[in-house]
């Protein structure tokens, strides 16, 4: 079982330290992300989901505790090693450019190419594999600004796949999508974890869908950060601690939120 773990966070406190003040957002967090699992991170706005993601992706240091990626401290890894083990998908807008979808996905191979970025046959095989897995063959010669938001999100996932890392972290991938595309994206993520044995961690506000499709969930509340399987979290009643509002109640039978 031990070798299944890709990323482990033990007893970390997250937050920001300025000159004198320590602003701890959450403490005593234990997480372990395993191979082949689709894991959803949920929590109310402003609870510190982004800070947690920034900390476990090595962008920001924890106030205490360590995050290890493949048994190495993530905050001591060099840039290249980190890029070969962890890829990200963000919601931010891409800067204007003439990049085609194929070129954009090919950029995912940068951690492996030589100084000028020459693609080897192996690189091209990985790129084509990522395109096939995400079923976007029809988009590859389009410019990245010519496709819809939903399509772009999938292209960015393909880019992360081409980067060929054991762990992929997505920051709110379903935010700008309608119901149809949200479901398609969730199903894609689910299929990718099954077919590629990668671990995919994503933050989301679509809790109902995450309950149905993810293998594990991480719930962030002001009191604690809990990681477990969705069915266990339902039995424990953890979802009711998510929002401090008596009008929003989680219905354990139906597996979704009811509001009055």
């Amino acid at each position, binding site marked *: 079982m031990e070798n299944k773990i890709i990323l482990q966070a033990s007893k970390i406190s997250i937050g920001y330290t300025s000159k004198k003040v320590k602003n701890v957002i959450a403490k005593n967090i234990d997480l372990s992300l395993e191979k082949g699992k689709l894991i959803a991170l949920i929590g109310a706005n402003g609870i510190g989901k982004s800070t947690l993601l920034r900390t476990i992706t090595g962008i920001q240091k924890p106030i205490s505790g360590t995050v290890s990626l493949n048994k190495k401290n993530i905050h001591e890894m060099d*840039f290249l090693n980190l*890029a070969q083990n962890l890829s*990200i998908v963000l919601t931010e807008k891409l*800067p*204007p450019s003439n*990049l085609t979808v194929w070129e954009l996905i090919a*950029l995912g191979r940068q*951690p492996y190419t030589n*100084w000028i970025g020459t693609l080897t046959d192996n690189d091209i095989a990985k790129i084509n594999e990522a395109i096939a897995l995400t079923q976007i063959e029809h988009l590859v010669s389009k410019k990245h600004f010519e496709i819809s938001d939903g399509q772009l999100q999938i292209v960015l996932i393909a880019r992360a796949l081409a980067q060929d890392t054991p762990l992929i972290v997505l920051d709110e991938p379903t935010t700008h999508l309608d119901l149809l595309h949200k479901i398609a994206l969730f199903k894609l993520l689910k299929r990718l974890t099954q077919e590629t044995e990668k671990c995919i961690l994503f933050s989301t506000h679509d809790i109902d869908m995450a309950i149905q499709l993810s293998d594990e969930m991480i719930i962030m509340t002001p009191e604690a950060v809990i990681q477990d399987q969705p069915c266990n979290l339902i039995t424990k009643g953890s979802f009711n601690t998510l929002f401090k509002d008596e009008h929003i109640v989680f219905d354990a039978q139906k597996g979704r939120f009811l509001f009055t």
Partner: protein
Amino acid sequence: MQNKNRNTLLFSFLTLSLVLLLLLNISLGSVSIPMKDVFNSLTGGNASKETWDYIIVNYRLPKAIAAILVGMGLAISGLLMQTLFRNPLAGPDVLGLSSGASLGVATVILGAAFLPPVFASFLLSSYGIILASSLGSFLVLLAVLSVSQSLRNTMAILIVGLMFGSLTNAIVGTLTYFSTAEQLQKFTFWSLGNLGNLSWSSIVILSICVAIGLLLSLVNIKPLNALLLGENYARSLGMNYKKTRLVIILATSILTGSITAFAGPIAFIGLAVPHIAKLVFQTSNHTVLFWSTLLLGSIIMLICDCISQLPGSDITLPINAVTSLFGAPIVIWLLLRKRKMMN
């Protein structure tokens, strides 16, 4: 694959144009020399008149080389700025780098009188002027960059660049107010831009500076491609952002600084040429853009220089006027055409 053929064709066409323009550029001037003689003289033979050989070797050839160096250097520094700032309107002149270089040069030309003669003579040498000019553009770029760190808005970065430009211009203005007529004349001539008047030794120094700047840009082609996805993705692809940014800034300051020191502040080449390259080659891949920007930069600068000779007359226009007349409409046209790409 079709793209590859198209690119090969375009590159061959541009290289051929560059050679022809070089010959044309050398043949034009107050004394017009037939292209055939220019070709003979350059390939080791002799022109039909001895004075023509003299003119070519000592005046026309250095000027043409200067045009090529200036075109290449400014165009590449524009390309670097546009990618680093993720802003299609960035360029050495827009971001105030040329003004920074002007400030450096103005301080040296106009302020040397206040310094002990030993320093003054060093500063007024070409090395001193290059150093002052590069330092000026480096400082302005650092200032723009540090402000832009807290401003995510790309429009704001441009405005900050323009403000730094005005600020340095104001200081230059103040300096000129206190200087002698002779110093003022020297500075004014410099600020109009001039590709002629460069001795072979100056050409050598300029070539070395431009070569260093281009080399520093060349090794950053891969990180520049990563930056097309924005800073965060670039980092996640294993790029050392701080180091890359520093090298890009250094390259830009050396290119803009040295070119401005020798040829004066030349407008619009840095802004317009990378856009023309992107439009012609339909790509954002810096491996292609680097070489196409180099070629197009030299070609356009040679054309501007040909126009500034006003073929058929004895008058020579200031090169800066020509590049502005040529560049400003191109930028407006590009903005209208490529609205989508600019977001």
